[in-house]
């Protein structure tokens, strides 16, 4: 009997087009859109030599050292500048076509011409600042101690690096994965729609079909469990398809822990469905209102988990950590983040524990609300 109920429930759910759309097709479509929009963004903060033009004028001929310094910085393995020497009108054209970030007019004090503010422009300015700062320092020191000049010039000619870079992790720091993790969290919470459906089907005051099922000589818990398990099978399969699509087609990285990853998705699926059963049991309004509550919880949750702006997740974690811990979507996306960035850490277990706790809470509350109801009339 249980198997019969289960099989037919799976068949029924498969034929619910809108359910299949929102829980399977929509997340896949959204993942594709994210991929298209975000694939080029990760290269933004990677350094590439800054395009700069040096104006070929009389002042420049008078300062061969200035030109030489710039040329040195444009050479080597990791050049700072991509240098062009040209006349002013050509440089202005290049500037307007965004080929260079700015151009430099040599002089007693060099002048920088840019189109607007920006990091590249600030680096150019910083370089020129240093040139005049060094000159001012030398002038001041030599005026007090003329003998120091040779030593100063020697110290100036040695380009010493006083900074040593110390890596903290071998893991890639690609924040774009947060968008995909939050999307998986959303897909898990969309499992609530299955939960809604299952409660609607067995609560006699919610649908005529439920009224009919309630008179059948089967234990209500048995019917309900069969339905929920069918929903779990459907939802979990959908999530696996989503995960496989993200990983194999879109190339989203999830770390190297397959089993743990599946655990996150499985617990996430249970959490989503139980959230739906809970909402359906506790909200005594029409189905439209229940769906609205589900959508608000899952969309707001995934927004706070960084689905629309990845930095939101960090901001919440830093400033309002309690919201991060209470938000089921954050727990889920953080578990995925922990797997990807921290391997197998305590953070992963805390998140899984939080998700399991939520699932247990939702299931227990649902059970107490929907069990053994009697109706005088319907």
């Amino acid at each position, binding site marked *: 009997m249980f198997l019969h109920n289960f099989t037919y429930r799976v068949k029924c759910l498969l034929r619910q087009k809108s359910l299949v759309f929102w829980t399977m097709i929509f997340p896949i479509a959204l993942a594709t859109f994210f991929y298209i929009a975000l694939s080029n963004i990760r290269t933004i903060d990677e350094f590439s030599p800054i395009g700069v033009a040096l104006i070929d004028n009389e002042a420049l001929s008078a300062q061969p050292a200035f030109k030489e310094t710039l040329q040195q910085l444009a050479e080597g393995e990791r050049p700072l500048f991509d240098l062009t020497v040209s006349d002013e009108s050509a440089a202005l054209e290049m500037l307007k076509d965004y080929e260079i970030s700015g151009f430099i007019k040599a002089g007693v004090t060099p002048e920088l011409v840019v189109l607007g503010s920006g990091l590249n422009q600030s680096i150019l300015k910083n370089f020129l600042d240093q040139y005049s700062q060094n000159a001012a320092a030398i002038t001041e020191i030599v005026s007090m101690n003329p003998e120091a000049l040779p030593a100063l010039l020697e110290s100036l000619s040695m380009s010493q690096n006083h900074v040593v870079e110390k890596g903290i992790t071998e893991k890639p720091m690609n924040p774009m994965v947060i968008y995909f993790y939050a999307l998986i969290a959303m897909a898990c919470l969309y499992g609530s729609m299955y939960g809604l459906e299952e409660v609607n089907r067995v609560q006699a005051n919610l649908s005529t079909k439920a009224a009919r099922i309630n008179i059948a000589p089967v234990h209500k818990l048995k019917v309900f469990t069969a339905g929920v398990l069918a929903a779990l099978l459907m939802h979990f399969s959908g999530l696996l398809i989503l995960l496989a699509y993200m990983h194999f087609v879109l190339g989203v990285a999830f770390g190297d822990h397959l089993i743990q990853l599946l655990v996150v998705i499985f617990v996430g699926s249970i959490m989503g469905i139980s959230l739906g059963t809970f909402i359906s049991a506790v909200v005594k309004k029409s189905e439209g209102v229940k769906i609205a509550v589900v959508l608000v919880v899952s969309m707001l949750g995934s927004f706070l988990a960084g689905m629309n702006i990845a930095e939101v997740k960090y901001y919440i974690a*830093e400033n309002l950590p309690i919201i991060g811990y209470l938000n089921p979507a954050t727990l889920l996306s953080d578990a995925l983040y922990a797997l990807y960035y921290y391997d197998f850490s305590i953070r992963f277990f805390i998140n899984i524990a939080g998700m399991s706790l939520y699932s247990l809470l939702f299931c227990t509350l649902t059970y107490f609300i929907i069990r053994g109801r009697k109706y005088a009339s319907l």
Partner: protein
Amino acid sequence: MPVFNVSMKIIKKNIPIMLIYIFVFVMVSMIVKGITGTDDSVSTFSDTLVPIAVLSEENTMITEGLIQALSDVATLVVIDDTRESIQDALFFRAVYMVVRIPEGYSDAVMNGNPIPLETTTIPGSTESVQVTLQMNQFMKLAEMYRIGTPDINEETLVNSVLEKLKNTTQVTVAKANPEAIQGDLMPFFFNYLAYSYMFIMLLGVSTIMLVFNRKEIKWRNACAPVTGLSKSLQFLLANAIFAFCTGLLLVILCLAFDARNIFKPNTLIFILNAVVFGISVLGLSFLVGNLVKGREAISAVANIITLSSCFLSGVFVPQAFLAESVLRVASFFPTYWYVKANTLIANLTHFDFASLSEVLGIFLIELGFAAAFLAVSLAVGKRSSQRA
């Protein structure tokens, strides 16, 4: 005008759902405005500051001086000195570099035997270049003063170095036209308008059409003493008013969020672009309304069409960051042309015919889309009415 009245009634009933998308627009605009700020003026240059964290293991005049020097190129963010906190901050770009000043650093500087500063960065990032330049410059100046004035004390050294760091270069901003638009906010708002506008129109128009296309109602209307032309015109009028009001509301919001640019000529052209886009979206909505069957499908179809066209066309992420192949596909959506026109309009500094010709060309393309959508939807509508 019974058809007109019913159409308006249906729209009124669906206002709460549509308001959600207006609300989304307002929320996103406020967040973006909060992040971007409004002080980015075209006529003056300001340094772009890099967020970094400094963890100092000693507190001396030299370390204080170094931190002050860093604050010229960076905003200092406070983070916990734990591995996880540093890793998280770097991952989410809350900081681009963590600088650790080791113990004994100041003594080492004074002895002429400096210990290197330890940095943890996002490997290869441009931001870290800027901060590294500044740290090296601070050290270089300190070293020069130490060599040049052997009996210098810590306080004088730091003060002299900081004094020298105040020497800055003159920066000129080319092409500063006071008539041109200020900042990137206005083009962003107008681009984002495409998302809310398209969604609301698709939802609204399809809902009305779904009612009128129901078989029983169609039959009933066919025997009503109102001519087909009158019905179509009333229907068109209702939808045009709907499109106009929605567009007007969104445009007012755009202007309200970036009030400093309201009286710029660019803004007027942005509005014209939104009007032309509205016409093409109206055409698309008619087509979709003729094709969808069932209420549940409307929301699914509207979501997919809106999100796909907005993601591909550069509404959420600028077109400059999208792949060539993606943009080629996107050019089959009016949204792509709308965003492209907005980008051009944002960069306009002259407003003669020659400068405007490219934008006007895009307006024609958008209108072409409207005509094409309308023609196809009429054909589809005719076929389905013959079937009914």
